[in-house]
């Protein structure tokens, strides 16, 4: 079992989703309990994986490799390293938390909803574990289908527009990636001696390809990741999808789906084309910084809480992009931990917006005010999450942002520290928009009488949010629990980049 733990992680939720379809309609409670039990089992599995993972090794561990397509040497190839380990933990944590938190929000077609959620979880884990490009692509696309239905069936007013936009945007990117995958494998054929889409094999030869060809492949891969992240200027699908999705959808979208983009950049763009990434580091950093500042400015202008949180994602993801562009061990480690942080705090922000929406059915900031007195528990926990998102020292956001800024400040790849300096403006702005929102919603006199009778968080909601808060504090106080696991793998990535720079630049 321990040898096949990765397959279990992927297929347990997918296979166990099928019984849901045979439950009697109307047995909502049973369905929910069943789903949450499955996700908790998956979470436990990922904890076992965490303890079984040897942090001193930078290689892929728990590798499973079976030939899938013989004539193309496509493999069912799974493996985990420090980078994917953290993201797996994040994914498996977010799912049970979300399901518990939105326990009563889904009232129609419950069966289908939880079925799709489990499929989504399995394929997300698949994305982070695949080491064969085609397998990766398959999972990558598979995610679209449950997500399409989740937003489309249970979404808000403009859900059709949002789903189509989301679907077409991502599909556009991923098809370019498919071209790049085939092209890469094909170009590598004479170098390896066979056509294969095995990532570990391709990684060895891809750096020796002509730079202009690398550049195109890099762009095709990068575009699809950039859309997913989303990097400015490909971010326009995100606010629509976020705003229209049901709370659970937004949480998963923000917490995990966006990480697919940054994970892809780190694993494939940097892993396969280190040198090209170095060449493009500055433009990427610029896009990242634009994302940070532009996203933050948009946040300030928002009147809708959910939109505000959605745009804050654009801003926060900008930091991670900047971190990757910096390409030093500190910045990439920071970026990685920031991926987790963003998942936790933005996920939690969406949950809070969902809580309040369930009570009042409005997300307009102007409809609220003075809630602190009415719902004190909500107010205090919400404050913690806001502060975590801003990056208050002692909470998780600070660790990530600090490492990113410190790491990219001195990065040899960016040649200039202006990007870092501009990035810090984003932190200031994030304090502005989040605290301002908090002030308008929570503080001051109660102006809207409808808010008088809003009930506070109930036990279920508090329990659901506690794990997130726990990790927010944990990472803020002792990030080493997680950083130590990823250090060796990140170092190896950076070493590869440096080695490529040295070797290849000597050749040219």
């Amino acid at each position, binding site marked *: 079992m321990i040898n096949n733990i990765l397959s279990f992680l992927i297929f347990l939720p997918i296979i166990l989703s099928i019984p849901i379809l045979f439950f009697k309609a109307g047995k909502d409670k049973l369905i929910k309990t069943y789903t949450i039990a499955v996700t908790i089992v998956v979470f436990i599995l990922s904890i076992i994986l965490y303890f079984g993972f040897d942090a001193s090794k930078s290689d892929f561990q728990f590798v499973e490799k079976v030939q899938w*397509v*013989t*004539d*193309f040497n496509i493999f069912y190839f799974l493996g985990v390293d420090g980078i994917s380990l953290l993201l797996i933990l994040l994914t498996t944590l977010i799912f049970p938390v979300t399901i518990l938190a939105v326990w009563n929000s889904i009232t129609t*077609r419950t069966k289908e909803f939880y079925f799709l959620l489990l499929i989504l979880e399995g394929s997300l884990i698949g994305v982070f574990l695949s080491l064969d490009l*085609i397998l990766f*692509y*398959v999972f990558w*696309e*598979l995610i*679209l*289908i449950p997500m*399409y*239905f989740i937003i*489309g*069936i249970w979404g808000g007013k403009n*859900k*059709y527009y949002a*789903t*189509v936009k989301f*679907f*077409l945007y991502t*599909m*556009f990117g991923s*098809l*370019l990636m*498919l*071209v790049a995958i*085939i*092209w890469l494998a*094909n170009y590598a054929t004479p170098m390896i001696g066979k056509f294969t889409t095995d990532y570990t094999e391709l990684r060895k030869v891809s750096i020796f390809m002509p730079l202009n060809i690398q550049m*195109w492949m890099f762009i095709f891969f990068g575009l699809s990741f950039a859309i997913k992240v989303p990097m400015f200027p490909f971010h326009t699908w995100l606010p629509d999808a976020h705003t229209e999705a049901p709370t659970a959808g937004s949480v998963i979208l923000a917490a995990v789906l966006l990480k697919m983009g940054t994970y892809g950049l780190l694993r494939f763009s940097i892993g396969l084309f280190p040198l090209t990434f170095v060449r493009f580091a500055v433009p990427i950093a610029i896009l990242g910084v634009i994302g940070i500042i532009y996203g933050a400015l948009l946040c300030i202008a928002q009147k809708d809480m959910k939109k505000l949180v959605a745009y804050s994602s654009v801003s926060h993801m900008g930091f991670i992009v900047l971190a990757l562009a910096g390409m030093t061990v500190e910045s990439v480690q920071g970026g990685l931990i920031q991926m987790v942080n963003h998942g936790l705090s933005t996920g939690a922000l969406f949950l809070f917006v969902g809580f309040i929406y369930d009570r009042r059915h409005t997300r307009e900031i102007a409809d609220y005010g003075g809630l602190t007195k009415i719902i004190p528990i909500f107010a205090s926990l919400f404050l913690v999450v806001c502060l975590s998102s801003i990056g208050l020292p002692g909470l998780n956001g600070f660790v990530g942002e600090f490492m990113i800024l410190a790491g990219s400040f001195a990065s040899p790849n960016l040649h200039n520290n202006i990007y870092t300096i501009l990035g810090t403006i984003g932190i200031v702005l994030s304090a502005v928009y989040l605290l301002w929102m908090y002030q308008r919603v929570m503080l001051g006199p109660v102006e809207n009488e409808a808010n008088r009778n809003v009930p506070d968080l109930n036990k279920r909601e508090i329990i659901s949010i506690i794990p997130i808060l726990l990790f927010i504090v944990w990472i803020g106080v002792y990030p080493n629990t997680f950083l130590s696991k990823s250090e060796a793998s990140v170092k190896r990535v950076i070493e590869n980049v440096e080695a490529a720079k040295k070797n290849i630049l000597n050749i040219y």
Partner: protein
Amino acid sequence: MLTQQILDGLSKFYPETILSVTILVIVFVELFFKKKTRVSGWIAMAGLAAAMLFTFLQVNIPAQTIFFQMVAVDPFSYFFKVLLILSGFLIVLFTFLSDEIRSSEFKTQEYYALLIALTLGGFLMASSVNLLMMYLALELSSLSSYVLAGYFKKSNRSSEAALKYVIYGGVSSGLMLFGISLIYGICGSLDMFAISAYLSANPVNLITLLIAIFLMLAGFGYKISAVPFHFWTPDVYEGSPMPVTALLSVSSKAAGFAMLIRFFLVAFQNAGHPTITTEGLHQYITLPGLHWPEVIAVIAVATMTLGNVVAIWQDNLKRLLAYSSIAQAGYMLLAFVVVSPQGISAMLTYLAVYLFMNLGAFFAAILISNKYKTENIEEMKGIGYRSPLLCVSMAVFMLSLSGIPMTAGFIGKFYIFSALINNGYIWLAIIGLMNSVVSLYYYIKILKNMFLIRPQGDTGAVSFGAGYSVLLLALAIPTIVLGIFFGPLTKFAEYSVQIFGLK
């Protein structure tokens, strides 16, 4: 000696002979039934089954030509025969299950005979190695499809469809005949191998040859509904009875592709000298100066772009599927640009996959029109909740047609684009993939109406008989399974690339 040769040919011609006999038997048996009957349908199925059996017996016959170089018996034609029989079989079942045909007041007598005739025509199209034979085969399949398209005589739409089909078909086959005569004029033979031998040995006027190729393409393009010979497609698909539409979109198209591939590869390649490249692959060589792959590339791009872009605006499911099938032809033509065994086997793989997903989509459309009496997509709101099995299967077919992974359509596209990229046609691959994005828009529009919008008015569940469900699953399950285990299919396609004379 001659008799010996004819008898020998006959012994390798059983499938076709059986189909011919089936036609006669159906016509004869129908004389005894005054009312509508399914008997002829069962006879048609029996005939197809027998033909299938004898086709299977041909699997190990060495590739050769029979009847004095008129038709070839080779793995390539074998592949298409299997495909055509499978499709014919499914269409007979569709006909049984279609309320549209059941409720029409016409007797079914000619229907099944014509269906078998179309299949026979397809058989011959796939195996002809002589232009005369090819033309006859084309006419056989066209004539039967004209009548099938106009099968509802009292429906204006159906009659209009038949008339349009006849006129376009007549013009295209006339152009093709002119092309054949030009080629005969240049090479002095109708035999594809003789043409190839003549072309590789003698200098010819390439402009004349190119004109001839264009004219031939009119015939092929009309069969596979490639731009600019596609104008009939939407109207005919919309007006014909649904099972006939399904038949035209798969059998006719597959046979057209078979003919196209064989004609170009055998007649316009240095057939005698296939060279071997460094990777150990056989490479077909084009005549120097004759840029027909480029012509095909332009047609392919135009076909898929037009099909996809126009499909976006369609509200009628049949018209939408018509444009989608135009676009699908474009993808398949893309692979032909490569002119290598890899490209051809990708085409064959795609065709096999297309059989399941497209027939599936049409069958789902038949069931929708049976139960909901509509072909309009806007009127299909929320039916996903009323008949889940039907609509989930439809979703599978739609996703497969758009090429989402884990469906057979993805494998088809994957092989096509691999072939393109492998041969350096990266931009062509990108255009093709961008087209897939466009196509996704209208495929998910159907899903949107089925699943994302709540049903209005009547919301009761609408279920089907077991037979319908079984057939639906028989199409949906291969569409998914072939997306995961496709080894045997691609092996079969690779094996079938052996065209007689070209290995």
